[in-house]
Each structure stands twice: as structure tokens, then as C-alpha cells.
């Protein structure tokens, strides 16, 4: 007879709460920096100098065709032999940023490439500098166009951060492992952690859907979209 004891897991709620908060924190930092990197790479690929565009495509292809866990292990275990020693938290954030940056680059580029040419010409004829054209005219509606895809990618990276527990970053899956090593309730601890991840992914998606139009590409005339 199978006997599940969820109380043994739920009674350790402070550890779970801390883990969930840590996961959210990691994801928030990674999302901001990763999308920033993605915007830069997206710009570089569609409007940057050829050498930079080539470099960025190599980066994007490399990251998109290797697993996140290998990227993480390379950064955490591999880089110290070059003299770069990183804490698990910093290594996790770097891996998440590098990973999200590559995917976001492709997504942002798709948004940039769909900018109507007339908008850029109109902005130039108003004597805006190239930087202004990009940051004021091209980028905001481009982000608006690809926001759903970007949101999905941020959620994917957050779920992927479960792997960071493997290098002992103390996020949610690490907390679940800790609880299971205390009371041997492996299955229950995993179920509870999985349920929290599900709630987090739904919550973060809602939050980003709400946040995007208000603060990131909202204060704009609707014409660009």
C-alpha cells in the first residue's frame, strides 16, 4: 500500500518558501539582464556591423544547440580552471543570462525586422540620431510585437533554473532535495515543488502580460503595432 505523507513536506514550508523566492529572484535578475543582452544581440544581428553580426550569430547558434545544464556545468566547473571562480548563485545567473540572451536575440530580431520602413524614414526625417531612432522608434513597438514569445522564453528559463540546484544554488528544487534528504519523502517533496513551479510559471506569465504593455512598450501610439 502506498502511503503519501504530504504533511511531512508541507511542515517544512519555510524552506520551500525560501526556495521559491530564490527561484523568483534568480529569474528576475536573469530576465532583466537576459532581455537586455537579447536586445543588444538583436540589434547587432539586424543593424550592427557585419563582424559583430557574425559573432552574435555564432553565439546564438552555440547556445541554442547545447543543453542548459552543460552550459551551467561549463561555467561553474570549467571556468575555475581558467582562474575564474564563481559562487553557485553567480554561475547560475550568468548561465541563465547567457542562455536567455541567445533566445531573446532571435525573438527581438524578428520584432525589429518587421518594423515598417516608413517609420524609420519618418524618424530620420525628423533629424533623430540613429540611437534615438532605435531606442524610441524601432525598439518599443518591436518588443510589443514579440512580447508573448519573450514572455514564454522567460518562463522557460525560470523552469530551466531548476537545474541550478545541481550546483547547489539554493533554489526551489534544491529545497525539495533538502527536504527529501531530511525525511525521505522524495516523491511528496517533488510533487509539492512541481506544484509550486506550476503556480510560479502561471503567475509570472500573468505578471509579464500585465507589466509589458504598461511599462515596457505601453506609452506609445498604437500605430506601430
Amino acid at each position, binding site marked *: 500500500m502506498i502511503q503519501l505523507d504530504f504533511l511531512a513536506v508541507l511542515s517544512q514550508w519555510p524552506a520551500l518558501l525560501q526556495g521559491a523566492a530564490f527561484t523568483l529572484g534568480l529569474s528576475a535578475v536573469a530576465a532583466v539582464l537576459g532581455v537586455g543582452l537579447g536586445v543588444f544581440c538583436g540589434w547587432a544581428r539586424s543593424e550592427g556591423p557585419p563582424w559583430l553580426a557574425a559573432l552574435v550569430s555564432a553565439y546564438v547558434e552555440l547556445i541554442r544547440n547545447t543543453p542548459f545544464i552543460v552550459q551551467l556545468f561549463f561555467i561553474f566547473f570549467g571556468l575555475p580552471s581558467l582562474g575564474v571562480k564563481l559562487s553557485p548563485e553567480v554561475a547560475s545567473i550568468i548561465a541563465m543570462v547567457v542562455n536567455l540572451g541567445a533566445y531573446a536575440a532571435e525573438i527581438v530580431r524578428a520584432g525589429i525586422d518587421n518594423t515598417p520602413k516608413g517609420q524609420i524614414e519618418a524618424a530620420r526625417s525628423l533629424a533623430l540620431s540613429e540611437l534615438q531612432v532605435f531606442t524610441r522608434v524601432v525598439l518599443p513597438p518591436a518588443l510589443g510585437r514579440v512580447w508573448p514569445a519573450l514572455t514564454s522564453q522567460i518562463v522557460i528559463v525560470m523552469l530551466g533554473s531548476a537545474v541550478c540546484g545541481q550546483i547547489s544554488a539554493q533554489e526551489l528544487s534544491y529545497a525539495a532535495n533538502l527536504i527529501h534528504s531530511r525525511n525521505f519523502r522524495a516523491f511528496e517533496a517533488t510533487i509539492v515543488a512541481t506544484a509550486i513551479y*506550476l503556480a510560479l510559471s502561471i503567475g509570472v506569465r500573468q505578471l509579464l502580460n500585465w507589466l509589458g504593455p504598461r511599462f515596457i512598450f505601453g506609452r506609445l501610439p498604437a500605430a506601430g503595432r
Partner: protein
Amino acid sequence: MVDFSMWDIFRNLLLAARWTVGLSIVAFVGGGMVGLALLLARLAQLPGAQLGVAAYVQLFQGTPLLMQLFLAYFGLALIGLNVSAWVAASLALTLYTSAFLTEIWRGCVNAIPKGQWEAADSLALSFGEKMRHVVGPQALRIAVPPTVGFLVQVIKGTALASVIGFIELTKAGTMITNATFKPFTVYACVALLYFALCWPVSAASRKLERSFKHGR
């Protein structure tokens, strides 16, 4: 102290890569079959299928693959099945793949103009005939590029099976690192091998997508 040459490292990783390929094939084929069954259940409008499959998809897309692997590993042990990491990983990855493929394919079926369904209905075709002669062939054409693209996700997903102790490319990398103390070289080689597996598939997916766009 035993010295490991570059070739020793690379050869052992190559041998382990067979398991990555094997697990990917099992998950992709198994996931494809389960995904197709779920898709057909939805299209045939079986009672509860719409809601059930939507929940299934949300469950697998909204939780980490790592947790799904743990659940399969601990869950199978809990119901008294003493299974290897290989079986647990195959099961978890098959279910994970099926959830994504069924959603991708549903999008492809939805992309078929409504008139096609109505024309098939007006010819009094049965559900099976509609699928085989009208909807299926058209959906298949749209479905090929994203399906091939998803194969890359499956191959990368198998790397997580290393965490539950299945010895594939990533796990072999960890083991070799522990023996050689050369994490930089070993993980670089691991990444290179994954790239060698995934990049041709990505490129094929892109090429198919382009030829499909121009073929219309």
C-alpha cells in the same frame, strides 16, 4: 597517476553519446505516438478530451523537465516498480515530448482553412477518412519544420536524465571530469558533441521552413 589523452576523453564521450541518441529517439517516437493519440482525441471531440488535454499540456509545459524526471523516477519506485534510470527517463521524456508535440500539431491542424473541413463534411466523409485524406496530408506539410525543430529540444532535454543517474553524454562528462580533473576540456567537448548532434537538425528545420514558404 594515469594520464588521459584528449582522444581518451573524446572517445569515451562519443561512446556515451550513443545513449543520448537512443534516449532521444525513444522519447521522440514514443512522444510522437502519444501526442498523435491526444491530438486525435481532441479532434474527434471525445468527451472531456478538450479540457483534459489542455490540462495535460499546461502541466508539462508549466513545470521543469527536471521535476518531471524526478517524479517518474521516485513515482515508479513508489508503486513498487524497481526500474532503471533508463526506463524512468524514457517515460518522463516521452510524456514531456507528447505534450509539446500535441500542442504544435494542434496549431498546424488549426491552420487548415475551415472550408476544407466543411467540404469534407459535405462529402459525408467519416472522421477517419477526413483525417486520412483531407486534414492529415495538409497538416503534415505544415507540421514538419516545427516538429523537426522540436527534436532539438528533445535532444537537449535528454541531458537532464544525467541527474537521475542515466549515463548519457552529460553524465559521462561528469564522470570523466571526476577522473581527469579537466572540467574545462571535458565540458567543452560535451558541448561540442551536443552541438554536432543538434545543429544539423536545427539547420534542417530552418531549411524545411524556408522551402515550405517558397513552395506555396
